[in-house]
């Protein structure tokens, strides 16, 4: 995915966390991470995981923690490579 896609994912993660930030931080991180796990296709989570390996710039504090929780376990989407 291109850098513009990464920017989109960073914005999406921040937007999600901005909804949950009114809650106590642990709940906000959990809520954000759960939302990402439930609604982001593995490619998106894998791309975010890749971004995290470079520091996750642009992510706010809650989004950063949530992405580390929701995305790092995703590999670089192997099920989408190599045929049906």
């Amino acid at each position: 995915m291109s850098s513009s896609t990464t920017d989109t994912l960073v914005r999406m993660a921040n937007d999600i966390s901005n909804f949950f930030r009114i809650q106590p931080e642990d709940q906000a991180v959990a809520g954000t991470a759960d939302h990402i796990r439930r609604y982001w296709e593995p490619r998106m989570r894998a791309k975010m995981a890749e971004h995290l390996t470079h520091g996750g710039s642009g992510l706010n504090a809650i989004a950063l923690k949530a992405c580390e929780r929701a995305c790092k376990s995703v590999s670089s989407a192997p099920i989408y490579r190599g045929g049906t």
Partner: protein
Amino acid sequence: MSLHTGNGFEVIDRGTPERKSEKQVTLEIDGQSVTVPAGTSIMHAASLAGIQVPKLCATDSLEPFGSCRLCLVEIAGRNGTPASCTTPAESGMRVSTQTDRLARLRRGVMELYISDHPLDCLTCSANGDCELQDMAGAVGLRDVRYGYDGENHLDAVKDESNPYFTFDPARCIVCSRCVRACEEVQGTFALTIDGRGFASVVSAGMNEDFLDSECVSCGACVQACPTASLIEKTIVQHGQPQRSVITTCAYCGVGCSFEAELQGNSVVRMTPYKDGKANHGHSCVKGRFAWGYATHKERITKPMLRSSPKEAWREVTWDEALDHVASEFKRIQAKYGRGAIGGITSSRCTNEETYLVQKMIRAAFHNNNVDTCARVCHSPTGYGLKTTLGTSAGTQDFDSVNEADLIMVIGANPTDAHPVFASRMKRRIREGAKLIVIDPRQIDLVRTPHVAAMHHLQLLPGSNVAVANALAHVVVTEGLVNTKFISERCDPTEFEAWAQFVSREENSPEHVEKISGVPAPELRAAARLYAKGPNSAIYYGLGVTEHSQGSTMVIAMANLAMATGNFGRNGVGVNPLRGQNNVQGSCDMGSFPHEFSGYRHVSEDATRALFESAWGVPLDPEPGLRIPNMFDAAVDGTFKGLYVQGEDIVQSDPNTQHVAAGLEAMECIVVHDLFLNETAAYAHVFLPGASFLEKDGTFTNAERRLGRVRKAIPPMAGMTELDVICKLSTLFGYPMHYNHASEVMDEIARVTPTFAGVSFAKLDELGSVQWPCNEKAPEGTPVMHIGSFVRGKGRFVLTEYVPTDERTGPRFPLLLTTGRILSQYNVGAQTRRTPNIVWHDEDVLEIHPHDAENRGIREGDRVALVSRSGETSMRAHITERVQPGVVYTTFHHPESGANVVTTDYTDWATGCPEYKVTAVEVRLTNHESSWQERLDHLHRIQRIETVAAE
């Protein structure tokens, strides 16, 4: 008068409306005993006893009027001959409807009518469907003693201005049915009786012709007319229909029932079906008249292929087209992976078709890359209502509005976008319900004949959540909470947290005034009015959902309704006004990438096991790509093949350039549609679709009502979407076969608990049902959350106002918001191909006089509309409907390119685009934008080689 339809349903006009009362009265009519609710007219009671009293000015869709003097009866012990339409039945009455005296009186009345009426029945367009003709026969009229040479109206000039119907004053009997229909049913008050006595004539507006008047062409007057005075031009041209089929309209989410009336396989009229539970016999200009697109000359009826979008289309056989799609999609998956293809289901297609598309994608493509156009409209509704209440749907039926005391319309424009429901809402307001409108723009509902909003909170686009929080602040801080409801129905801990949150100063009306521009006293007054109820109902549209906080706003509305106890009975609730005919259904059917039918997440093992067992294949536990993310993945090179069913993503989705870039990066795009739409310009395969007239199935409207779609004519392309999907899936290695759409619904019922009791047989028996329809509710559920919420305890969720990232500034100082108008529908693919074009032949930019003057813009000037995303141009319309700093346009014409300027900001939860807030600048221009010039080029290369497939 009754009509036997092709479906075996019989429609009887009982002359006056049905009355409801706990008290029953028993009377005798022509020797027959009949018991009716108190308040029922003698005419209606007689009809129930099988006795049809002659009538002309009476029809049961209108209140009795008592003008024609034909329905006179005699009542034992009473003097005179009262009109049976205006005389209520009373216990012990003995009524005679046929006596010599009555016969003489009726013949005398008919003589007067006929003395001023053309005697050309044989050549009259209403011949065979004329109540005047019927009544002349019924009363035994044989002569007119007055002759035909006296003063008359026979030379009156016919008004043919309306594209769909004519008004011939010569044939008018001034029964006022049209005027009353316009007032009572439609609520527009466009018609009147001008003049007095013999000079009385029906007049549209101030003696204008119909086209120039305030008439909205709903057809209610035509429907009500007992003669050929107001009649459809198609009937004038073709004659009376031979058969009819009851079906469901394919326009908006109201889901009106219609009788498609036909001669052979040609539709000659669409008549609103009186027993339709969504529309009760009413219609709008789109459903009633704008159906000609179905046989428009631009319909594509043969499959087409091309190796590149730069080439001309080539007509091929169905086999060649579908073989090619299967082959290409298999090639793409082999090369790029199984996640490299996906599809989009249509909210215009039937439940059965959308169900099969998502099934094909999940079971045959082996991924969850399925999404639907609800993504770009009401996906936040699903998220917000499921989060708070437990179900992704509106809470009420439409009839519920009849018991509302306070109606709050938020970000919706019902008179334009949901006109049939708007008419009922207006009727309720005329009966005394109060109205609050929350909208950046002065929609018609703010002030329209006999309807005025008590409060119009004219907020700035993007400040919805702040306003909702302010309303909640007043409810909580002024002690207006329904504590009994909260303690019985909601989670108390979550309520307490919410109450503390909304009580904060940042949510006070005084603070929110600075954000929204709405004066604090207005916010406070509106909140008090809503809390006071006692029945307060929220109706909302895309002005709520299409924001970066769309889901938050849905949650905020649900919070507000819970706090005031406005759930679980008639007259209340949170009610989305869905945009497209089957947007509710397409969501119900599992069109979202993360959930199966019935809104069950793909990661749930038990749910997945159910579908794996039913479908016989392993299923992916991970969510698939949403539409915007499909474009992102395409640009990144990992998404290469897309099947698009009945959806014009290029015109309807935001940031057109990004959509186009995504499509250009794909290797096989399949468009399955009626017309070569804007998306087809990027496609490699075109599969001709079938219109709603050509297939069987169901649509689900905004009130969760499943209505039958019945095949009226054969599919023009030879195959319906259902046939095509089955064949494509089979070619892909996952055989599908259904003999009829009813078999698909049977499968849906087997795998979806909320649909467990739905079948075509039940729909045919009941007319329609509202889900949940199952063992607990075998005949459906009009009102949800009675007694308890579907999720158990109602859940209050904190809704912090977070400003959108889309900000105005020196370069882009204005806020653009978008919407639609009455005569056109969404991207206009249907309505632009009908005479509706006379009302709206181009999209224009509404701009406030102050903003126009500052820019030297005059009415009708071409202006450039520029945002951070792109630029387009259109003509300016200067109006105070919009407030200073806000501009507005529609998106019905591809040439206007409204979505070239909208951004790719989306709702945080669902990815629904933020169409309603775009920072723009407007300036004078004298040329089209570069994007518009490119569009012209694309249209030119959309040519079709005339070599027919062998």
